Each structure stands twice: as C-alpha cells, then as structure tokens.
C-alpha cells in the first residue's frame, strides 16, 4: 500500500500553488468557468428552487401538506435531518481526527471534505426547524429569559440535540474558515483584478504570514481539531439518543449512540468519495489526489461498513437474546413485514456491496467505487426510513397502528436540500482553493 505515492513525484510548491489558485481565480488560461460547472450549477439552482417552493408552501399551508400524522409523526423531515447530519460527519472525521493522527494523506482531502461537511450540516439544520408545527417559535428550544417563565427541558435529548447541532455547525464553520485563512491570503496576493484582491483580502482577515501569525495559526488549528474530533462523536451519539431516549419499540436501545456514530462515518466517507472522484478529473487534481487517497477512502468505507454491519448483527442478537416479545415482533416486521424491501435494501447497499472493497484492484476501479458510495448513501437513507417509520407505524397498541406515505412536498424538500447542498458546494469549489495549499506546501517541504 505504501508503494502508492501520496503526491505526484514532480510536483513542487510552485506548481501546486499555481494549479490550485487557477481554479479559484480563473485569471490564466482557461480564463472562463468551465461548462460542466455552469451545467451543474444550473441543475442545482433548479433543485434549490424546488426546495424554496416547498418551504414557502409549507409556511403558508402548514404541516398538513406532509404525509405525517398519528402514529407516524416523524417522517421524511427527521429522516432527512439524520441523513444529512450523518453525511456531514465525513469532513470532520478526515479533517480533525486524522489531523490529530498525523497521517499524510489527510492533507489533500481535508478542504474538500470540510466543505462537504459545511454544506451537509447546513441542509441538516433546516429540517428540525421546518418540522415544528410553528417554526417561527424554534428559539423556544433555547433557554433565554422570556416573559413566559419557561425554560428548556434539559432532560430531553431533543434539547441536547439542539445544542449539539448548534455547536457542531458553528464549530464546523469556524474550523473550515480558520483553515482557509493562509490560502485566502495566497489568493489575495496572487489575484490581479482589484475586485478579487479586495474580496479575498477582506476574507483573509489581514493574514500576512509572519512568524507570529503562523505560530498562532498552528496552535489554534490544533486546538480546534482536538475539539472537533470528540464533537463529531458526541453529536451523532446525541442524534442516536433522540431515538433511544423514547420508549418506542425498536428505538429504546443502548447501542443506538455508537450505532449512529458508525452510520455517520459510513455516510461521511461515502459522500467524500462521491464528490472527490468526479472533481479529481474535472479539476485535474490527479497529482495531489492520487490513487493512494482513493485506496485509503475505500478502506475507510469498508471499515465503517463493517462497523455498521456489526451494529445490525448486534441489533438482531440483542432482540432475540433479550426478553422482550414486542422487540422480536418489531424485528420480524422490519425484516419480513410491509417495509421488508427497505430492510433488505439497507443490508445489501450498506453491508454487502462494500465487501467488494476488500480487493485493492476493485478499490482503485473508480466507477465501481463511485457506485458503491452512491449505494451506501441510498442505503443509509433507507436505514433511517426503516428505523423511524417502522417503529412509529407499529406502536405497542395494535389499535393505534398506522402507515406512512410521503407526499410530493416531502420529496420536494429532500431534493431541494440536495439542490442547496450542491449549490453551496459548487460555489465553494469555484471560489475557494479546493486543496489546502499551505498544508500541502508544508508537507512537500517535509518530504524533500
């Protein structure tokens, strides 16, 4: 494995900086934004527009336009929230955890991965607010001194969730932006147009690369990485507790917090592969994102898939080893009931297909890896559908059983957030350096 180089052998700090700056500045040749970018951006804007319409209609007409009702009061809204926030984890795992571990392949990936985190966390944060019947009162979750004499219910995981997500989103923005500062300063110094120089100059916050600034930068960055790494574990544990804290059959399980962390890692690595493979060709990043990176990401995808598989097995084991007949009924319903295709789809997409990644030759077959990553993201979506909908649809009282069919407006919102995600990500890809140049230069200096 170490035979695969982490950067093309003839690359220098000079060539790297020029190549990456050219993507953002577009002042050399080619001086235009490529056609694929405009096409993708137009498509994203279209989806985003669909999402905006869905939100506007929701605000006007209320939650009745969705398929949720008793007993299934959580539907695609919470499902999409959990799905997106799990997708957001990839950047933090790669950027913070592997920074602390000091692995060399992390450097070329962290900027893209963090940008994906940022965009996905943005999409996730929308759903908990929209799913409130009265979304304009969302701030009631926050303990502020109000004339109602009310205080947040600190015993509820939903309140922990509010704080966890808020902290995670703010920390992700700061971590991403802080890491960008030296690269923004590079762009400011290399830009020729006055408008661009001012744009990147303001964003660079006066970073000039003095020894003192670098010293502060390095310390703060390390501290932030040390904070982010445990934060990504806590945020997904708390998402798991949103479910485990309730008494619903199939949710009330002590393995949920780690199970959700595993699931987050799986979707996080999948989305990084999904975005990285096309961008690598489109932006010509081959010298920096080598086969080594694809190989490592494939291994990570396989590892997290095995972790998730372990959680599925333990779920079945605990159900049949434990004393609760209701749990067994729920398990049989999931595996062989109305939503059985969802269960088996989850197993095949999340566990079976990723087993192909045991072979290095397959790990380096990019179209296959891309398809496996896409399958994993679909599988993780199905897994949340199975967890949320089956448990709610079959409550402990058979008289209160129900079904859930999402409406067109719930689907529109899902695709709308995909549009938001792509729009934000494409803007970052177009305007910001897609690879952390300063860190790559430091790595190159260390290698020579």
């Amino acid at each position: 494995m170490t035979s695969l180089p982490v950067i093309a052998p003839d690359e220098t700090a000079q060539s790297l900086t020029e190549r990456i700056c050219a993507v953002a500045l577009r002042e050399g040749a080619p001086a235009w934004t490529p056609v694929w970018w405009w096409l993708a951006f137009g498509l994203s804007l279209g989806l985003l527009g669909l999402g905006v319409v869905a939100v506007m209609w929701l605000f006007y007409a209320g939650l009745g336009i969705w398929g949720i009702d008793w007993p299934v009061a959580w539907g695609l809204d919470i499902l999409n929230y959990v799905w997106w926030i799990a997708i957001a984890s990839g950047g933090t795992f790669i950027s913070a955890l592997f920074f602390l571990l000091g692995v060399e392949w992390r450097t070329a990936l962290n900027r893209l991965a963090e940008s994906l985190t940022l965009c996905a966390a943005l999409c996730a944060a929308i759903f908990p607010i929209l799913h409130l019947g009265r979304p304009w009162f969302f701030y009631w979750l926050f303990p502020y001194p109000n004339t109602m004499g009310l205080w947040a219910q600190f015993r509820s995981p939903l309140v922990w969730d509010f704080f966890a997500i808020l902290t995670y989103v703010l920390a992700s923005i700061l971590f991403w932006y802080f890491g960008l500062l030296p690269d923004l300063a590079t762009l400011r110094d290399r830009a020729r147009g006055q408008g661009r120089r001012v744009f990147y100059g303001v964003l660079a916050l006066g970073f000039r690369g003095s020894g003192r600034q670098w010293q502060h930068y390095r310390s703060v960055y390390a501290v932030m990485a040390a904070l982010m790494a445990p934060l990504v574990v806590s945020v997904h544990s708390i998402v798991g507790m949103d479910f485990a804290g309730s008494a619903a059959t199939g949710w009330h399980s002590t393995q949920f917090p780690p199970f959700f962390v595993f699931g987050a890692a799986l979707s996080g690595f999948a989305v990084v592969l999904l975005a990285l493979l096309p961008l690598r060709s489109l932006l010509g990043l081959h010298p920096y994102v080598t086969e080594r990176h694809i190989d490592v990401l494939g291994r990570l995808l396989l590892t997290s898939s095995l972790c998730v598989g372990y959680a599925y097995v333990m779920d079945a084991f605990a159900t049949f080893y434990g004393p609760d007949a209701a749990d067994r009924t729920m398990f049989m319903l999931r595996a062989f009931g109305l939503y059985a295709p969802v269960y088996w789809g989850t197993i095949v997409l999340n566990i079976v297909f990723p087993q192909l990644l045991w072979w290095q030759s397959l790990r380096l077959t990019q179209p296959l890896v891309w398809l496996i990553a896409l399958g994993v993201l679909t599988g993780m979506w199905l897994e949340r559908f199975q967890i949320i909908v089956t448990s709610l649809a079959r409550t402990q009282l058979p008289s209160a059983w129900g079904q859930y069919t999402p409406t067109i407006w719930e689907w529109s919102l899902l695709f709308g957030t995909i549009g938001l995600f792509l729009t934000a990500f494409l803007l970052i890809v177009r305007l910001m350096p897609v690879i952390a140049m300063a860190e790559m230069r430091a790595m190159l200096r260390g290698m020579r």
Partner: protein
Amino acid sequence: MAAVFSPRANVIVTVTIIGAVGVIVGGCLWWFAWPRSDYVRHVGWAIQQPVPFSHQHHVAGLGIDCRFCHSSVEHSAQASLPPTFTCMTCHSQIWTNAALLAEVRNSLADNRPIVWARVTDLPDYVYFNHSIHVSKGVGCENCHGNVARMPLTYKARTLTMQFCLDCHRDPGPNLRPLANVYDMDWHPDGATPHPADLMRAYHIGGRNLTECSICHR
C-alpha cells in the same frame, strides 16, 4: 504591487468589530427589557370606556362590594360585568339627569347592553377561572391592583405568563384568609395565618400547579 488596503482599513475593521459587539450586546438587552416594559404590557393604561366609571368612587367612596356588580365571580370562570339593571338599582334614583350617565339610560331604554372595553384581556388559549382563585384565597387585588384608587380603571399588573407562574410555583405568600379576598389595600398582619397553613387550609399542593393543562387545554 500596491497594497490592497490603506492603513485606514484597520480603523474601519476595529470600529466594525466594536460596533458589532455593541449591537449584539444592546440587542440582547433590548430583547430582555422591551417585552417586560410597562409600555408593551399596557400597564397603567386607562382605556376609553363608553361611560367613565370610577372604581374609586364606588368602592372606596361608597363601600360597594366587588360582588355586587361582578356577581358570578365566586361561581363561574367569568367574574362577569353587570347588566344595566344593576347600575339602575341606584341610578334610577340618584343622578337621574346627569349627562355623564346618558349612555346608561339609553342602554336601559333601548334594551341594549353597554359595550365596555376590556382592561384585562388574557389570550384565548389561557383558560383563567375566577371562581377557583377567589375560593382559594387569591385576592382580587393580587391581579387587578387596588381598584379603590382608580378613578378610571387601568391594568395594574403585567399579566405575563411569568406573572402567573411566579404565583403558581409558590402560591403561599399571595394567599389571604377568605374574609379578606375582596379587601383592597390589604396586607398580612400578626393575625394572618402562616402561608404554609393557608396552603393546607385551602388544600393547595396536591396537584402540580405548573402543569401546562392547568391553564392551557
């Protein structure tokens, strides 16, 4: 290459940062203080009424009991406003030609109620019940203020949810003996039972008074 920013940029950034902090701190203070202000809560506002009825004259001057006009306060959720006949108990005999009372006489002649303006208006999702409060020793004065000193009736308390909850969380100090519920300007003296004894006597404390469904249904 010329510098992108002049030295003045540092001043602009400093002022912007200080300004932003000022706006945020000021905004938080405003957010805290504004909803609590008497202006927002309409505390001390006398509302325009069809007849300038004076509680001061009728309660302090003539010594009429609250229940003479607000007759259902002990038995109903509503304290109720008096029908014109109640006014006419006296005003068919005294001040029969007063211009001030023309609206009262018209009301009787046309068989049409006087449309009083609400001074104390709780939101519709609050199910306030007068009878339970007066029969558990909460004085009129506790929420309506000392009406014996109001020539024109005005709102005396904020009546925010915080105001309700302050008492529901600790009712004892606001309770009176039943004999003093309708008194104005009443203060506990040496003979007043201890708050805890009043709570016991009224059987308060069996149910959590801060449950949502106590006031919201």
